[in-house]
């Protein structure tokens, strides 16, 4: 008894290991289920929606996925560390607003503006990280503060004026054909969705960072047992700051695609978008208590929400129904999470 290594909750290490292995296996299963759900929903809407089965609709689904997916990639890291970032929606909007302001009011080149957008968003992510890791603010409170600050800063800088990015019909609108989609051509009647490539590249980058790098390993480790990571001599604060900064950078990438897709940015908005991203992450099977989650799950979650909202629209249902059903899916996904954890905990009984 004395020589058995004990960890939290006084569980022998082998039980924890077995439990974790089981949860990881279950997660693969849920990802499969999420993928199946995505497919079933798509087929369902193809049958019952008005002209849903068309490439035009597919492109529309992608269009409304991009900006949510980018935010969701970033916040997946944060949630796996067991944290939360409420500021992503307003951070995204704030950096987009400032970029639009620099473009239209200050006459900066559109490319420079897009770079500045990413820098601003990254800076806010860094501030979140410092507040949480160095100054020990709870993530909820730190990012709530930054959420309000970014919403305010966006309005202050722009003097509560709507900012417009160049539309696809002017010379500067070329950035749209890189980040959003190209003009319609014979081969692609609704335009080639180049945003898919932009999103795909960053999806691979995010997956690489999470699975193949030190940053990814520490992200999982901090989420599983922060204290143990700290005791083993790792500079937890540094890695946490990096995770929140990365999340901020992804808000910047999201802002670019948001500006490219919707052109017009209104001050005072953006609150609530973070919940879309968080919902995508949850649907994708990432646990809010940290330590578990995958990037591909997040991608599926973001797509699933887009299919749902586009599909319900094709059925002639109003926006409030879409919100309701998205909420329902989130609840179901979390119920599944709880059920999974119960199964995992049941292993304890097997071992004792």
């Amino acid at each position: 008894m004395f020589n058995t290594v004990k960890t939290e909750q006084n569980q022998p290490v082998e039980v924890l290991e077995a439990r974790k292995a089981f949860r990881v296996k279950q997660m693969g299963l849920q990802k499969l289920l999420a993928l199946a759900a995505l497919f079933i929903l798509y087929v369902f809407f193809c049958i019952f929606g008005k002209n849903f089965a068309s490439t035009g609709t597919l492109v529309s689904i992608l269009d409304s996925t991009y900006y949510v997916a980018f935010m969701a990639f970033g916040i997946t890291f944060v949630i796996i560390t067991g944290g939360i970032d409420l500021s992503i929606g307003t951070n995204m909007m704030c950096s987009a607003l400032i970029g639009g302001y620099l473009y239209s009011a200050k006459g900066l080149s559109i490319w420079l503006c897009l770079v500045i957008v990413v820098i601003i968003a990254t800076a806010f992510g860094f501030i979140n990280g410092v507040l949480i890791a160095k100054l020990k603010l709870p993530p909820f409170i730190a990012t709530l503060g930054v959420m309000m600050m970014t919403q305010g800063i966006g309005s202050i800088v722009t003097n509560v004026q709507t900012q417009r990015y160049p539309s696809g019909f002017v010379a500067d609108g070329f950035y749209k054909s890189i980040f959003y989609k190209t003009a319609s051509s014979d081969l692609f009647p609704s335009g080639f969705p180049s945003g898919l490539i932009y999103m795909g590249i960053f999806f691979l980058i995010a997956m690489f960072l999470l699975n193949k790098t030190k940053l990814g390993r520490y992200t999982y480790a901090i989420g599983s047992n922060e204290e143990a990571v700290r005791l083993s001599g790792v500079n937890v604060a540094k890695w946490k700051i990096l995770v929140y900064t990365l999340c901020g950078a992804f808000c910047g990438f999201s802002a670019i695609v948001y500006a490219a897709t919707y052109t017009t940015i209104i001050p005072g908005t953006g609150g609530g978008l973070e919940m879309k991203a968080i919902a995508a992450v949850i649907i994708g099977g990432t646990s809010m208590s940290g330590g578990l989650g995958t990037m591909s799950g997040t991608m599926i979650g973001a797509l699933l929400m887009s299919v749902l909202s586009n599909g319900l629209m094709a059925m002639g249902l109003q926006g409030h129904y879409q919100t309701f059903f998205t909420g329902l899916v989130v609840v179901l996904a979390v119920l599944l999470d709880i059920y999974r954890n119960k199964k995992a905990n049941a292993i304890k009984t097997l071992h004792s």
Partner: protein
Amino acid sequence: MNIKKIGALLMAVAMAASLTACNSSGKPASGSSDKPYIAIVSKGFQHQFWQVVKKGAEAAAADLGVEITFEGPQSESDINDQVNMLKSAINRQPDAIALAALDTESVKEQLNECLTKGIPVIGFDSGVPNAPAGSIYATASTNNYEAAGIAAQKLFENADFQAKLKAGKITVGVLSQDATSESVTQRTRGFIETLTKLVEAENAGSVEVVGHDLFKKAATADVKLTIKVNIPATTSAADMKTGAESLLTSENLVAIFGSNEAAANGILAAANDGSEFSDTGRYKDIIAMGFDAGKTQRTAVENGWFYGSITQDPYQIGYKAVSLAVDAINGKAAASPTIDTGAKWYNAEALKDESISQLVYE
């Protein structure tokens, strides 16, 4: 193992979805009917105004034998939602689309797509200002600038206002929902400029406009009238109320105008649902005016707490949008690029008249 259970959950979602689909106004989901189909994308559902527009559109659809869907984002700042709705509407291959754009820039690409696909687009309410040439068939809307000008005219005719204007320096407050939407901006501008013109006809250069850069104007002579514009941080009810409160506590305030339902509601909320404007209330000397209607605003006008308000004709906006769409489908050339759907001044007296009362939705 638990796959069964999860499968059951998924089916429950799908079933719930199809159930609501069947219940929602009995609209067939798949396009099986032969009637022409018009997709209407509005600016919102938040205000009762849109419900009356919808009623008008539905009446026109029944009269003219067409099928319509009516959708709009949950709030008037959800530009991304509206763009997605418009894309979805185009994908449904309608015979015509009626659109009240939140912002023209954001829908330019979709308008272009409609143009290439030969789907006629009809503007309604604020329409699609500065749309690319040829992309809009015609627009059914209120002339907002002139409509708000009526309120300025009525204020100027008011005896109390005249007396105070003669006595010394006064302030008029204008609460404007945003400086973004064309219709709200036009109204705010229409009110400010009409009032400025009327007052300056007697005392040139004596009016200054402060509070927002978009409307700013300096006086060139002794200031007799200060028009103070307030545009709250967001369009939320709480922020509108705060904006109204800051105007109501301004020095020498003699009148306040809210340029849409949200702004009028903000003023009402700041004045205890309007009762503070009554003869015994805190703001009894302030002349309050609004725009559009709604239960609280209507009550305030009926009780004489509000001097009066301007109403558009939302029913006609909806009705004419659909009838213009039918004209477009039938290949008729548009008689004129804009069809004015009218606006009326209403006060406690006018509300007794049924022809006006029916325009003032609750």
